[in-house]
Each structure stands twice: as structure tokens, then as C-alpha cells.
């Protein structure tokens, strides 16, 4: 086939136009893509080039072109900063907890929804549980703050009526509960929406597999583990690889909004919020860029590593 084409092509185009004339000949088509590519260049590629500020002492007035280079200074500062261990610990612990709880939760929900035969009930649960995904973190954090508040906070009222606590507690000012609150709100917001993909994967499972399994005497409980889960495993693995690639993204908006109390700094400071605090609030642009670059490099490494493991098991991203 390829051979045929090479033989035919010269005959079809007897006059060989230069690249430039061909390019201008399709100017109307090029006009569809070039403005968009320019925007991508400006808003994606220029910031990529901008990471060199990490190796400079960036000065607002001199800009990237005029600021002096200082090598690895900012990286060294970050590694020797007392915040480094704290920020790294919080990042890894929070995203580890989110991965351990937030990753399986939508899979569990999809499996449970799949067992529901009552269509009306299923629809209600889906409608309600998808909704929080569409709300901003400002609103979700506002709801969480209200539920956890000492002033008519539902959690405090519930625990008091059960006689588990005597006085309303200010949950969002207690470092020991912050991680739990963060993981719970995260799951609350995304469990429903995350289950859509898995539900679709479950819908694609060959029904004859279930018939065969029930012929062999497998209960519905057993069918979940013997048929459904193995069938959706490829999808699960792909999403797991992506989640591992994001291991250094412990969350940003949620931590910023729920961890406002300075008393929480010790447990709430993660790489992304640290970049924000150093860069935007303290205007230490070069230092913050260095921290961000450090994070980006480790993330790409993690993604590659996770993919390597997944390829061994036969399901990989690329």
C-alpha cells in the first residue's frame, strides 16, 4: 500500500511546489490554528521558559533577561530550610492518605451502585453524590466550616447529644484532626463524580461472565471479586498511575481554605501552599519557582516510575 502511494504521488502532483507556496496556498486553514498556537506558546511555553528564574535572583524591574544568575542557590536554601522536612512530610502524608482513602472510595461506590436494582433509588444516589463536584472549594469549605463550627455546628451538636463531648470543639483549630477533615471533605466532594468512569467500565463487562459465574454457584458477593473487579482492573490501573504521578500534589485550594488557622501551619503546609506563600505572599519569586520546579521534576519521575511498574503488569499509559 505504501509503495503504491509513493508511485502514484509524483504523477498526481507533476509540478513540485515549494514548501512556502504550499503554506501560503492554505493560508485560510493555517489561520484556523496559528492564533491558537500563539496563545499556547504565550501562556504555556513562556512560563516553561520562565522556570529559569529558579536559577536567578529575580528582580521585578530587570525581568528574566536582566536578572543575575545564581546557580543552585535557591534549591540549596530550600533543602536546608527548616520548613523543608515539614513541607515534605505533610505533602507525602496528606497525599498518601488521600490516595489510600480517596482512590478506592469511588471504586467502592461504583461497585455498590452496580448492585442496586431499583432504578429510582440509583438515580437519586447518583444525582446527589455527583453534585459537590460542581461546587467551588470556597463553597465546600464554607459548608465544612459551618458543620464543624462551634456556633450551631451539626457535628458538635450530634456529639453533644450523644454525650461524647461536653463542650463544642473548634475542630478546625485542632492540628490532630486536620488531616482527617481534609481527606473527608475531599472524598465527600469527589466520590460521586469519580465513580462515573468506573460505572461505565462496569457497564462494559460481558454479561455472560456473570451468567457463567452464577452457574458455577458464585454468590453476588463473590461475583464482585471474581468478575467485576478483574474486568475493570485496566481502568483502575490507569487511574492509579495518574494518581501516583500526582503524589506531590497534596491539594491546594482545600488546604488554603480549610487550613487558614495559623495554628495548623505545622500540619497543613504542603509544597503547593508553600510555593504560594513564598512566591505570591512574600514575593520571593526565584525561591518559590525553585520549589515549584523541584516538585515538577519529582512528579515526572514518579509518573515514569509508576508507569514502569504498570507496564510489567500489562497496563500502561504509554
Amino acid at each position, binding site marked *: 500500500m505504501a509503495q503504491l502511494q509513493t508511485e502514484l504521488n509524483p504523477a498526481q502532483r507533476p509540478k513540485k511546489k515549494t514548501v512556502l507556496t504550499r503554506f501560503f496556498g492554505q493560508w485560510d486553514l493555517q489561520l*484556523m490554528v496559528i492564533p491558537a498556537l500563539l496563545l499556547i506558546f504565550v501562556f504555556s511555553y513562556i512560563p516553561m521558559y520562565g*522556570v529559569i528564574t529558579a536559577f536567578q535572583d529575580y528582580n521585578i524591574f530587570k525581568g528574566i533577561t536582566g536578572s543575575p544568575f545564581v546557580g543552585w542557590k535557591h534549591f540549596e536554601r530550600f533543602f536546608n530550610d527548616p520548613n523543608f522536612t515539614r513541607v515534605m512530610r505533610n505533602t507525602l502524608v496528606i497525599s498518601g492518605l488521600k490516595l489510600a482513602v480517596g482512590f478506592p472510595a469511588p471504586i467502592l*461506590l461504583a461497585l455498590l451502585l452496580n448492585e442496586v436494582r431499583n432504578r429510582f433509588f440509583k438515580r437519586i444516589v447518583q444525582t446527589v453524590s455527583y453534585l459537590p463536584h460542581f461546587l467551588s472549594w470556597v463553597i465546600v469549605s464554607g459548608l465544612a466550616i*459551618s458543620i464543624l463550627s462551634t456556633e450551631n455546628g451539626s457535628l458538635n*451538636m450530634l456529639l453533644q447529644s450523644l454525650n461524647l463531648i461536653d463542650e463544642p470543639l473548634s475542630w478546625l483549630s485542632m492540628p490532630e484532626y486536620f488531616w482527617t477533615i481534609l481527606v473527608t471533605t475531599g472524598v465527600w466532594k469527589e466520590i460521586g463524580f469519580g465513580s462515573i468512569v468506573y460505572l461505565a467500565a462496569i457497564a462494559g463487562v460481558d454479561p455472560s461472565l456473570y451468567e457463567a459465574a452464577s452457574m458455577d454457584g458464585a454468590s453476588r*458477593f463473590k461475583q464482585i471479586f471474581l468478575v467485576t473487579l478483574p474486568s475493570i482492573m485496566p481502568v483502575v490501573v490507569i487511574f492509579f498511575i495518574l494518581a501516583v504521578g500526582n503524589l506531590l500534589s497534596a491539594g491546594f485550594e482545600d488546604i488554603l481554605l480549610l487550613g487558614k488557622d495559623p495554628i495548623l501551619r505545622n500540619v497543613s503546609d504542603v509544597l503547593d501552599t508553600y510555593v504560594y506563600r513564598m512566591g505570591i505572599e512574600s514575593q520571593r519569586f526565584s525561591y518559590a519557582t525553585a520549589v515549584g520546579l523541584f516538585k515538577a521534576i519529582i512528579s515526572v519521575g514518579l509518573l515514569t516510575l509508576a508507569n514502569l511498574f504498570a507496564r510489567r503488569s500489562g497496563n500502561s499509559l504509554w
Partner: protein
Amino acid sequence: MKIRMSSGDRVLTAFVYLFLALLALSTFYPFWNALVVSLNKGMDTALGGVTVWPRSFTLENYEIVFQDKRIIHAFGVSVLRTIIGTASAILCTAIFAYGMTRSELMGRKFYMVACLITMYFSGGLIPSFLLIRELGLFDSFWVFIIPSLISVWNMIVFRTFFLGLPAGLDESAKIDGCGYWGTFFRIVLPLSGPVIATLSLFTAVAHWNDWFMPSIYINNENLIPIQTKLQQILNSNIMTEQMQQLDSAAQARLSAMKSITSKSLSMATMMVATLPIIMVYPFVQRYFVKGVLVGSVKG
């Protein structure tokens, strides 16, 4: 055929229904409670015990919110930003995607790779921040529109959809004398209703919900959208601080109405900021399920 359930299956079913009912309830309750608190007298709420029904019903929290020019203005900024931002982004991305479907486009492979790279690497927060600043987009309405005009992800979804359209359509349009632009606007765009609806929904939600970008790029009070405004109100727990976020007329009324507290006011503002999403949500549900699946098939 009726399938008989074993006793183990019956336990499983009971557990499934119970668990899901609890989940739905725990998702729904915080909204309902916030709505109830926003409709209850603030001083009465402060006594505690307000859960599923207002104890001392009032609309005064909403009166303050709706009479406050700054909150209404912020709401208007959000509406404007969402409409202009979504319409322009969807149109520009669709044109771009259509161009990228044409095999005769010179440099198509190179363009595609240039797009895909941006999905894996980005400069990060600070370089983008410095760029926006150098472009003079600080304190400008255009900072909401221009940087999000082209989305590579949406381009790929559009492109996949366009490639699925019958090839004969393009050819017949060409024979009838349509250029690329004519074909796009007269043939391709009218056939793309479902994908436009899905992507518009997600783009509009992102615009409506964005509070972080304005919080770092906008100082001008007149350009603050409702989500950022809400964040400022929620952030200031103390009533006097909160009052500074309101206009002077609202402050005067607030001091006259002694029964309003910072919590009741926050909840009312929150309900106003959530309302547009809750109102369109039931109508667009079928689109977003499709949208997620389009995305996941590609991913």
C-alpha cells in the same frame, strides 16, 4: 425470570441500600443545613440546635445580601465572565480543533506534539504569575478570558468528535464552494450540538467556580467575582471585619438589624453563590456523564 436470592445476597443487598442511603444523606445534609441556617434568625441560630428546619424563620439575611451593591456587582462580574469566557473559549477551541483535523494542514504533527507537551509540563504558578503581570493583565477583566481561551484537552475532545463526522460532508461542502471557514460554520458547527453542550458545561462551571485567580490577579474591587467575594466574607469571621466587605448602606442596615450574625450572613451569601449551579444542575446532568466518558476514552 425471577432470580432467587440466597440469604448472603440478601444481606449484601441490605448493606448496599443502607450504605448508599447514608452516603446520599450525608452529601445532602450540609446543603440543607446551610439553607436552613440562612433562613433562620442569626441570633437564634447562635443558640444552637438548628438542623433540618428553621426555628425562627426570616428573610432578613437575604435582604442584606440582595441589597448589598458590592455582592450584586460581584455576582454580575461572575455572570459576565462566565458567559463571555465560555462562549469565546468554546468557539476558539472548536475552530482550532477543526483546523487540526485536516490532514492537508502543513505542520500538523508538529503542532500536535507542541500541544501534547503542555499537558505534561507546565511552568508552574510563579512563572505564570510573573507572565500575567508583565503582559499587563493585572487588574483587567481580560485576565479571566484570554489565558483560558484555548484548552488543549477540549481541543482533543472536539477533534475526536469532528473526526467521527462523515467524511462526505466536507467533500460535498467543498464542491458547493465552501472554504474551510464556511464548512466549519455552516456544516461542522451545526452538527456538533452535543459536544458543544458538554464542553460548555465544564468550561462554564470552571469559570463560575474560579476564586483563586482573581484573588491573586485582581485588586480592583469592581472586578472581584462572587466566589472570591464569598471567600473574603467567609474568611473574616468577626462581624466587624465582615461588615467591611459590604457597602456602607448595607452596613447601616446591618447595624439596625441586631439579629443577624456573621454566620447567618455567610450562609445566605453562600446560597446565592451556589444557586446558579444548583438550578442548572438537573438539566445538564445527562451531558456531563457523556463528557466524562468522552474524556476517559481518550485518556
